[in-house]
């Protein structure tokens, strides 16, 4: 057993908590963790693997949520094709963003993605009010209707989310070990060199940004159906900030780290918000301390500890 397996084991325990605990306790929390994990896994493809810090992922997340809601509620589409469409639209918006944002790198990239997503947020609140319901959002977003199973029961919906989550995790794992993943890591460590070797850097970055947008769109659609509601808050920059915190907290650039980050974020949200109304500020402090003290996140910490306990057997 190496550290990687240990992380996988931890993740497995977290996501199967409703099966392990009596009476399916914690299913609501785990459902949220599964959805945000899909978002975070996709985000880490851009942030952790390709090394691009985006502050605009709320746009893809929110647009996916609106797409699913509008297609199911106004157009009468079935849930599954609508979820697919949420991913496609999320990816398409990401592709459009990337044409502007990839012209610049580093800090400019973060600023430009932030500005573009804020433009979409403003549009959803004003110009597109007819479509989006303005600041009120849209309530009554449905859940899937499949095989006669009642997905309005959180316990049943858990299995649906679990299936999507595992699929998302598998695809992300494959991308990471694929030539695309390797090329992206090459770009991250040295963009100029990667270009000299002959990689089309911009096209690779655009591809991974679009894939990440698909992940965000699907996750947004799922969250809208989980809470039966979509509102402009999902497009707000603080949603982008949340996913950055989750990924950094868990461990950027690792497959399982972001999921741990999501779990801790959500458990804190659940627990701290019952203790104090100022949980977000406490989260900010924790975030600052983690950024300074453990830049590889919890996954990095666990791997380090593991290497120390098992001398000789370095993973």
């Amino acid at each position, binding site marked *: 057993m190496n550290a990687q397996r240990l992380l996988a084991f931890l993740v497995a325990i977290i996501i199967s908590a409703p099966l392990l605990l009596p009476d399916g306790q914690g299913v609501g929390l785990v459902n949220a963790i599964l959805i945000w994990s899909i978002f975070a896994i996709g985000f880490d493809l851009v942030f952790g693997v390709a090394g691009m*810090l985006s502050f605009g992922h709320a746009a893809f997340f929110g647009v996916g949520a609106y797409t699913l809601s509008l297609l199911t509620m106004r157009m009468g589409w079935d849930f599954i094709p609508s979820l697919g469409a949420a991913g496609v639209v999320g990816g398409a918006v990401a592709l459009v963003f990337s044409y*502007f944002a990839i*012209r*610049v790198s*580093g*800090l*400019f990239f*973060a*600023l*430009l993605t*932030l*500005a*573009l997503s*804020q*433009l979409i947020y*403003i549009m959803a609140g*004003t*110009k597109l009010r007819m479509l989006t319901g303005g600041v009120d959002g849209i309530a009554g977003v449905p859940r899937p209707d499949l095989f006669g199973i009642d997905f309005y029961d959180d316990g049943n919906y858990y299995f649906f989310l679990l299936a999507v989550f595992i699929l998302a995790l598998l695809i992300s794992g494959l991308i990471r070990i694929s030539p695309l993943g390797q090329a992206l890591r090459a770009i991250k460590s040295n963009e100029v060199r990667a270009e000299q070797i002959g990689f089309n850097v911009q096209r690779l970055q655009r591809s991974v940004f679009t894939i990440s947008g698909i992940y965000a769109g699907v996750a947004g659609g799922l969250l809208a159906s989980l809470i039966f509601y979509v509102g402009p808050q999902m497009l707000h*920059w603080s949603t982008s*900030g949340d996913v*950055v915190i989750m990924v*950094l907290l868990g461990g950027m650039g690792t497959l399982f780290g972001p999921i741990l980050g999501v779990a801790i974020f959500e458990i804190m949200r659940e627990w701290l918000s019952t203790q104090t109304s*100022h949980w*977000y*500020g*406490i*989260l*900010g*402090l924790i*975030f*600052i301390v983690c*950024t*300074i003290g453990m*830049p590889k996140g919890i996954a990095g910490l666990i791997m380090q500890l593991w290497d120390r306990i098992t001398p000789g057997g370095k993973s």
Partner: protein
Amino acid sequence: MSTIVIGLSMGMLLFLLAAGLTLIFGMLRVINFAHGSLYMLGAYLSFQIVNVTGNFWIGLAIAPIIAAVIGALMERIALRPVYDRDHVYQLLLTFGFILVLDEAVRIFWGLEYKQMYPPELLSGAIEMFGSSVPSYRLFIIGFGVAVSAALFFMLDRSRYGMIIRAASGDPEMVRTLGINVSLVRTGVFSFGAGLAALGGAAAAPLFPIELGMGFNIIIDSFIVVIIGGLGNIRGAVMAALLIGMTRALGYSYAPSWVDFLTFILLIGTLILRPEGLFSRKGRTA
């Protein structure tokens, strides 16, 4: 006429923020996400001080000093340990500051809007070219011109300005010359934080004081520093006036398109001249 006054006064406020942002970027190579929060903090502090002392000018003077101290602490405690790492970490840290500062404001002042009035002396309006103009807006323009003049004088003529310019260009060389560059960095960050809070304190009587005010202005300030060219303080002046005027004209002729106009300016700049509209011609390679 009043549109021009509103545009110029907005431009001046934006410049106070953008100048700090651009100075900090030039010196530390980090974009301070929390700059808007410091601006907001300046407004709340000034509100509090005015409530206690009843004197607007004390608020305008003290609020930036408190913010500058907070800024110095932020740099000292959090940013300094991560200078060796990728710049992304510094950006993330300043993002963490937003969460903490916003929460602090929420703890001390709650969620309600606060309202402040201009001092007695400036609460009237002045007739200019056939339209009446609030004298507080005129004061902001004059104040902004004075502060920027002082700033330019400091940067171009004084010894401190010389050190800052030199350390922005080549910190290693400046360190070899026996200057404590770490201290300069703390100073510049603290100074930028003070400028942001000065902007906030000056803006407090114009707008409702609320939690969202920091984020609303930070996006505009980012746009200003990008259009002006990052690290280019002269460009920031022009860009701040450009954005201020765009906003003012937009509000009076096409209010629902204001945000689009500014974003189009930003996107156009990044596509056509990513180094900034007002950067001087110069080759780096």
